[in-house]
């Protein structure tokens, strides 16, 4: 009897561990294993090729990835932090609206976002051409592409991480601390640098690490914008396309090592005891801007930011109304109608990718939902040896770049093994739902962890004390309480899975091609309108999910992203 609790824990852990070993650990190790083979012979040749003098391209790509990521951190911080400070510390007309818009880049799936940027600011982009025509220039005044394109897209899509951490740190900051500093005679400058800023640092460091990781993993932006410029996540894709799986494995291992080191560093940093606020009941604390000049400068800044932030969405909407074959040599599109949307419903091959994405994302999310709840429950509420290790194992797919996750699955499941029930999964329908499952498991586990940690142990004990068995308690008490958090996490995973590009491009088959692949196909055929219409479907889906989350589940969906 003494072991009843331990038995329950064990029963819970066995499936969790099996799934994690089969679909996370084994593929990762398999990749590492493959990387030590060259033409089927055990050797370090691949690593020599990577680091050696012969093939500079790979090392160059690694180096490019690193400094692009560093610059992405810098630019994201330079946009996100001041914006958060202004929108959270000063009261001026429209402040609330501006601060809601500030997280809009999150509503843009990466591939769709990059596409919108291309048509906005690229060679044939609407903005450069509009300026050219307005000012009667002979050439476009600027265009993005290559490094500048990647950096601008990164800054746009990643600054919200800085914005959100800064905003939440500022709202958790007890105003009386700053008041105490002023009271002791510090001027505003001193107060900021000696009190406010040090208290923001933990959040800023966390955001920097996150942006660095996300940027190292970034695939869509370099894929569409890089031109000849090489980054490591893209190199993996090229190696795979060229059929050099062993080199792809080696590159994946290098990128994995960087990512996992960052994951461990981040865990260590966040686990450290830091100076959190001890005081409770912190009220909002915003200075009313009374100086009219300053006030209207801020409003202008807000309006300007909103325009910049929403331009990609607007572009997407406009482009989606351009029917096929009507925008060829003209500078601007001239015909607008709903053809691209109606075709979704009356043309099967247009509708098919949408259906595929929805079905595959649904399957993956069903798995993530069930499995995520049990995993999170085991991690938060059960005691066992090796918990820390399990926690890291769950987070690995989150830390690994999507390209690497895709490669791992290719290498693990292009031959039969027990975890695929003796089947070859690569080239079948099931490999993509599996990839989405692995990719988005950490997201659901994290959002479930957050609600489970809020759930006091005494609630379960009370149910038990009243005579309820464990499973009854779990069904009738635990699940209903945590459901909003789990659902919002799962919904977010769902929309991300619908838009997922990097793993899709490595693993899709013609039969199960998802939306993102079809967007690429349409772009290749210069059918921009249809591609944009696909993008709009995703944007709409995300908007619906965020609305449901905040309205019915009381959860800010974007919180789960951080």
């Amino acid at each position: 009897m003494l072991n009843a609790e331990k038995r329950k824990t064990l029963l819970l852990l066995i499936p969790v561990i099996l799934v994690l070993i089969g679909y996370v650990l084994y593929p990762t190790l398999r990749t590492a294993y493959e990387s030590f083979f060259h033409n089927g012979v055990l050797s370090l040749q691949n690593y020599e090729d990577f680091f050696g003098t012969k093939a500079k391209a790979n090392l160059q790509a690694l180096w490019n990835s690193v400094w692009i990521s560093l610059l992405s951190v810098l630019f994201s911080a330079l946009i996100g932090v001041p914006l958060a400070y202004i929108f959270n510390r000063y009261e001026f007309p429209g402040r609330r609206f501006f601060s809601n818009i500030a997280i809009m880049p999150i509503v843009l799936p990466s591939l769709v976002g990059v596409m919108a940027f291309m048509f906005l600011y690229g060679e044939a982009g609407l903005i450069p051409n509009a300026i050219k025509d307005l000012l009667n220039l002979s050439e476009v005044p600027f265009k993005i592409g290559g490094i500048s394109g990647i950096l601008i897209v990164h800054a746009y899509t990643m600054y919200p991480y800085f914005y959100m951490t800064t905003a939440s740190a500022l709202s958790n900051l007890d105003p009386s601390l700053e008041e105490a500093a002023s009271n002791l005679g510090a001027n505003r400058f001193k107060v900021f640098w000696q009190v406010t800023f040090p208290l923001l640092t933990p959040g800023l460091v966390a955001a920097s690490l996150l942006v660095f990781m996300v940027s190292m993993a970034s695939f869509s932006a370099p894929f569409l914008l890089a031109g000849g410029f090489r980054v490591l996540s893209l190199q993996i894709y090229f190696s795979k396309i060229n059929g050099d799986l062993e080199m792809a494995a080696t590159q994946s291992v290098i990128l994995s090592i960087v990512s996992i080191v960052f994951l461990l560093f981040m865990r260590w940093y966040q686990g450290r005891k830091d100076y959190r606020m001890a005081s409770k009941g912190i009220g909002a604390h915003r200075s009313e801007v009374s100086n009219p000049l300053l006030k209207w400068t801020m409003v202008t800044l807000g309006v300007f930011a909103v325009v910049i932030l929403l331009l990609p969405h607007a572009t997407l909407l406009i482009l989606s109304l351009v029917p096929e074959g009507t925008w060829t040599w003209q500078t601007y599109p001239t015909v607008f109608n709903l053809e691209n949307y109606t075709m979704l419903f009356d043309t099967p091959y247009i509708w098919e990718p949408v259906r595929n994405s929805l079905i595959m994302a649904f399957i993956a999310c069903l798995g993530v939902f069930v499995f995520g709840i049990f995993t999170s429950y085991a991690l938060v509420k059960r005691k066992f040896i090796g918990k820390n290790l399990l926690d890291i194992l769950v987070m690995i797919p989150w830390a690994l770049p999507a390209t690497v996750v895709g490669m791992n699955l290719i290498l693990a499941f292009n031959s039969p093994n027990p975890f695929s029930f003796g089947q070859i999964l690569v080239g079948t329908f099931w490999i993509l739902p599996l990839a989405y499952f692995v990719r988005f498991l950490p997201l659901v586990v994290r959002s479930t962890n957050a609600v489970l940690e809020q759930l006091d142990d005494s609630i379960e004990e009370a149910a038990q004390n009243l005579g309820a068995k464990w499973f009854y308690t779990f069904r009738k008490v635990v699940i209903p309480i945590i459901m909003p958090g789990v659902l919002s996490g799962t919904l977010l995973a769902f929309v991300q899975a619908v838009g997922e590009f990097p793993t899709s491009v490595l693993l899709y088959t013609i039969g199960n091609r998802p939306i993102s692949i079809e967007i690429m196909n349409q772009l290749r055929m210069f059918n921009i309108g249809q591609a944009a219409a696909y993008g709009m479907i995703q944007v709409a889906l995300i908007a619906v999910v965020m609305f449901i989350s905040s309205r019915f589940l009381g959860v800010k969906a974007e919180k789960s992203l951080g």
Partner: protein
Amino acid sequence: MSTVHLSAITKQFGKVTAVEDLDLLIREGEFFTFLGPSGCGKTTTLRMVAGFYYPTKGVVKFNDRDMTTVPPEKRNTGMVFQNYALFPHMTVFENVAFGLKVRKMNKADTKKRVEDVLRKVRLDQYAERQVSQLSGGQQQRVALARALVIEPDILLLDEPLSNLDARLRDEMRAEILRLQKEYQITTIYVTHDQVEALTMSDRIAVFNFGKCQQVGTPTEIYNEPVNDFVAEFIGETNLLAVVEAGSGESQRSYHVDMLDNDVTVNNTSLNVAEYTENDELRMSVRPEAVEVSDQPITGTNVFPGKVKMVQFTGAAVHTYVEMNDRLTLVGTALNQGPSTYLKEGAEVYVRLPEDQIRIVPKAGV
């Protein structure tokens, strides 16, 4: 209803011993309190009765049934948690009905029983409310009703009043006692608040460092503490190190180093606790026993001093008397008008009545 019998209970968490070699017999229908500072093992003991922990060593019995390793859901105890642990997604009614639903009681009986108990805790108007809409005191009553409705053999209360404000606490104290008497249910009450313990309990067990120091009625615990920890933890007291100086038929004398003098104590079990030769000794005098006067007092154990501070609390007046530069004694008298307040700095006489002093051994750790 049942008795609770803990014998030779030890509970270890890793290397830390939370409860050590505990023997307790809680009688049927008794209101029994575990009292002690935080980390003393009282909550751990309660949780072993509830079944959330299993003892490392020893046996837990309800009546004659061995419950040592029976899981909590099969013990039929009703527990009220410190934070109430109400199910946030259920109404008041659903919370209270939970235990009956688990017991597969039919709807009509459930409804009757729940309404009945809600009436008893005076919440019948609130049955359909969400628990988050209730005040702290009301939530407390829901928790009580939820524990009582299953007609448990034992009611377990884990610091149930610690989250309430002072006035509500008084009210709930009376409420809990009323319900306990009405249901005549064996009750274990955990608290660190000595006033709660003294006013509510039939008997009290005082815990410190995982060991039960003393079990007794409130008056026994207050008047005849077995060691200096119990004397100091319950109520206020003047505690001084003493050494036995002489022993007679009806009185004993002890040397008080801090007073540089001897005091005389009646040689009765009320005034002298059991101790052995090797024990360090302490003398405990309750402030309300200390006589302070600006007129010379006759009798034994009278010492001069100077008033250092007079503290007025309304019902009582505390007088702090500096006996010498090492020792200040406190005397408490009921407020009987301005004439009873002494002036700060006044020369006074202090008497420690020989029938009110208690000699106790220092508690071993």
